[in-house]
């Protein structure tokens, strides 16, 4: 019996003009770890919802074909019944945790199934031990961090020992460390228990190395269904936006793309056996940013200390020049969001001073929070909308009907739309603007931000976006900068805060993006040939 079987499934959401899944036929065998790839709106989440019965039972709409999860036809069995066999983890940890403590959260699905109290207690303990969250069991869910909440939600999905686990962008809200830990946990569970795992993800470089198979969706149809290396070859030829940076690097060098840093290094050794000796010797030629001259924003020994709590910013001093593109990085709780809120005046320092040469605009994490009018045209001026690439065709649309990327642009137009004129905004700050975005949207956003005149500061966990956008990277830890330099200086030698290209090349030449990496390796190859 297959873990999941979709047979000619076509599904259209209520009121939608086109199907979200279009004649999809796929069979997933027990024990497989499958990654669903595709741009935003390609049908990844809908496929997962078809597996757990939310489609069509919860969302309604028109459903044709057959879907069977763990042998149960989803037409005859609703999500409640399927929950015994299909564990589900969504993107946002806050909305899927419904109980007051982690223990109660893990017990909830088992109690719904009418398990005995002893059975519930045992399953909760085992799930907690398997995920390493035993120490969280008696903590209130309201006090857990995003990464902890996501692991508790995963525990709730796994406590009933489902044979199929479906996960919808589970790492999009997590920092790189927590995201990598979650993927490693899934791989271990898959290997230890033979559970089938289907995971939809935009950051393919994070999970492809752990996958047995990749299914790529385009406009609701299956465009590729193959092992990771074959998928990457296909993506490099046909869908570069779905290709991982490491695979793009190898493809540019004429090598067959592979998933993961370790395999990419092995592939490079196959062509250039001396690569391990040559790369470390290739030093980056970078120039530290100029700190003198005019300033757009200056933090002067700024502290933010919470009453009866910790200090979030600790004597932080930072100067941003006009037009500079700066990325703020650091783990969750490092002080990135607090710094941006201070810059925009939403928070006041308990000690120290902040000076800005003009208005500081801030785009917070959720763009929908900015949308209060009935039409796009009433949210911002035509000039601001044009700046962010929203033309007249958007003017009459309802802001909440826009896609995620379009909402992001509209919110950006709102915050930079200063009545005093386009030059009044000296600094634009963005807090985690790439959460849940596919690579094409991220590249668009990076280009848009680079085209603005104001200095731009982005707090983000996404090193690939940083490489595309930033001139300068400030790494925060414990409320103070621990590294401040060019993107190449800071990101090239890191492990978690590094691009995949930099990790493959060990930071050689300060190359962060695949095209830079390819150039470095081509120079090295030529030098090697000359020496030979």
């Amino acid at each position, binding site marked *: 019996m297959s873990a999941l079987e979709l047979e000619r499934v076509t599904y259209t959401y209520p009121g939608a003009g086109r199907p979200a899944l279009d004649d999809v036929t796929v069979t997933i065998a027990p024990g497989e770890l499958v990654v669903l790839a595709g741009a935003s709106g390609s049908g990844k989440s809908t496929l997962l919802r078809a597996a*757990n*019965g*939310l489609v069509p*039972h*919860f969302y309604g709409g028109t459903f044709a074909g057959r879907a069977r999860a763990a042998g149960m036809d989803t037409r005859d069995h*609703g*999500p*409640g*019944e399927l*929950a*015994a066999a*299909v564990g*589900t983890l*969504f993107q*946002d940890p*806050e*909305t*899927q*945790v*419904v*109980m*007051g*403590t982690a*223990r*109660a959260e893990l017990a*909830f*699905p088992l*109690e*719904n*199934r*009418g398990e*005995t*109290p002893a059975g519930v207690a045992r399953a909760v303990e085992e799930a907690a031990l398997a995920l390493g969250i035993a120490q969280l069991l*008696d903590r*209130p869910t*309201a*006090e857990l961090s995003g990464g902890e909440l996501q692991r508790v939600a995963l525990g*709730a*999905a796994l406590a009933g020992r489902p044979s199929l686990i479906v996960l919808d962008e589970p790492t999009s809200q997590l920092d790189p460390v927590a995201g990598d830990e979650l993927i490693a946990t899934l791989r271990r569970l898959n290997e230890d228990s033979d559970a089938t795992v289907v995971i939809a993800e935009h950051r393919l470089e994070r999970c492809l190395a752990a996958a047995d198979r990749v299914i790529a969706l385009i406009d609701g149809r299956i465009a590729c269904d193959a092992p990771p290396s074959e998928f990457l070859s296909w993506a490099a030829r046909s869908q570069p936006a779905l290709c991982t940076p490491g695979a793009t690097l190898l493809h540019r060098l004429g090598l067959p793309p592979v998933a993961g840093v370790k395999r990419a290094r092995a592939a490079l050794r196959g062509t250039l056996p001396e690569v391990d000796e040559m790369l470390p010797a290739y030093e980056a030629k970078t120039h530290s940013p100029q700190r003198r001259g005019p300033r757009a924003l200056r933090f002067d020994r700024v502290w933010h200390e919470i009453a009866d709590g910790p200090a979030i910013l600790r004597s932080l001093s930072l100067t941003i020049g006009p037009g500079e593109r700066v990325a703020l990085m650091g783990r969750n709780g490092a002080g990135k969001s607090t710094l941006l*809120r201070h810059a*925009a005046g*939403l928070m006041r320092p308990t000690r120290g001073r902040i000076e800005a040469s003009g*208005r500081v*605009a*801030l*785009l*917070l994490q*959720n763009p*929908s*929070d*900015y*949308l*209060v*009018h009935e039409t796009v045209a009433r949210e911002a001026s035509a000039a601001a909308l044009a700046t962010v690439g929203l033309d007249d065709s958007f003017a009459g649309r309802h802001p*909440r009907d826009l896609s995620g990327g379009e909402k992001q642009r509209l919110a950006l137009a*709102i*915050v930079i*739309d*200063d*009545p005093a004129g386009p030059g009044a905004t000296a600094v634009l700050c963005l807090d985690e603007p790439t959460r849940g975005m596919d690579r094409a949207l991220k590249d668009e956003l990076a280009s848009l931000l680079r085209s603005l005149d104001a200095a731009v500061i982005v707090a983000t966990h996404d090193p690939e976006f940083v490489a595309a956008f930033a001139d300068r990277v400030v790494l925060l830890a414990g409320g103070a900068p621990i590294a401040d330099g060019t993107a190449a200086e800071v990101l090239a030698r890191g492990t978690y805060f590094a691009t995949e290209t930099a990790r493959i090349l060990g930071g050689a030449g300060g190359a962060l993006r695949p095209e830079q990496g390819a150039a470095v390796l081509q120079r090295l190859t030529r030098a090697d040939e000359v020496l030979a």
Partner: protein
Amino acid sequence: MSYRRRASPLHAARAGAGCAYCLALAIAALTLSNPIALGALTLTIAAAGVGAGVGRELRGAAVFAAPLAVMVTLVNALVTRDGLTVIWRFGNLPVLGQTDVTLEATAYGAILGLRAVALILCAALYTAAVDPDQVLRLFRRVSFRSALTASLATRMVPILARDSRRLADAQRCRPGPRPSRAQLLRATTSGVLDRALDVAAALEVRGYGAARRPQRVRRPYSRHDLAFGAAAVAVIAVAIGSRVAGLVPFQAYPSLHAPAGLGTVLVAAALAASALLPFADRRGIER
């Protein structure tokens, strides 16, 4: 304000005992009208909060309740025509007509305000010291979905408060004129509906739609379960018994009568002792 497990006798007691204890204090507040007895009961609830380690939460609730108490006092003084002792003549006011403020109406308004404070403190004590997940388990055998809805509604309060703070921050980041209240209300409602839809989907995939009646969990009664259960019975017995026996007389109209006799003092002391005694035993309070 939300529940957080602390090392206190009340937190160590099962939810049934905690619920009964808070309910008994609330019933006592509704039963007693004598200002000395009601004042003693209010102080007792505050002391119970301190004993449970949630004094800070109760202080926050008191800050919210105090203006309400003042408002209740003023409204009662202005709208009630009863009472013989006039302390202020406003004359003929629009809407209210001839308005004479009497000592009796003012005092009774203050009693009502004090009662409101006592009830709010009881609710705060319950919220901060009784495990909502255990309460859900307690009531789900009777009506699972109603119990879960009530539990979720309680949990949604801090989430929605966080959402509204986020929305307010986003609006502060907008340059130019601020949106109207109606626009903000529409945006907030839309956000709440989105949030509710996400939570409902999460409930579905956790098997809520196919939930079965859970099996009864038999746990041995701890010393704290017994102590708070007994305290609940004692508080109700003292409050109702003293009222029936006329030990705490109080009359607001036509003239004020609230004697501070030995009986009243004894009732106040009995209430405090029976409600606070369980906090003296601090054995086995850590989980």
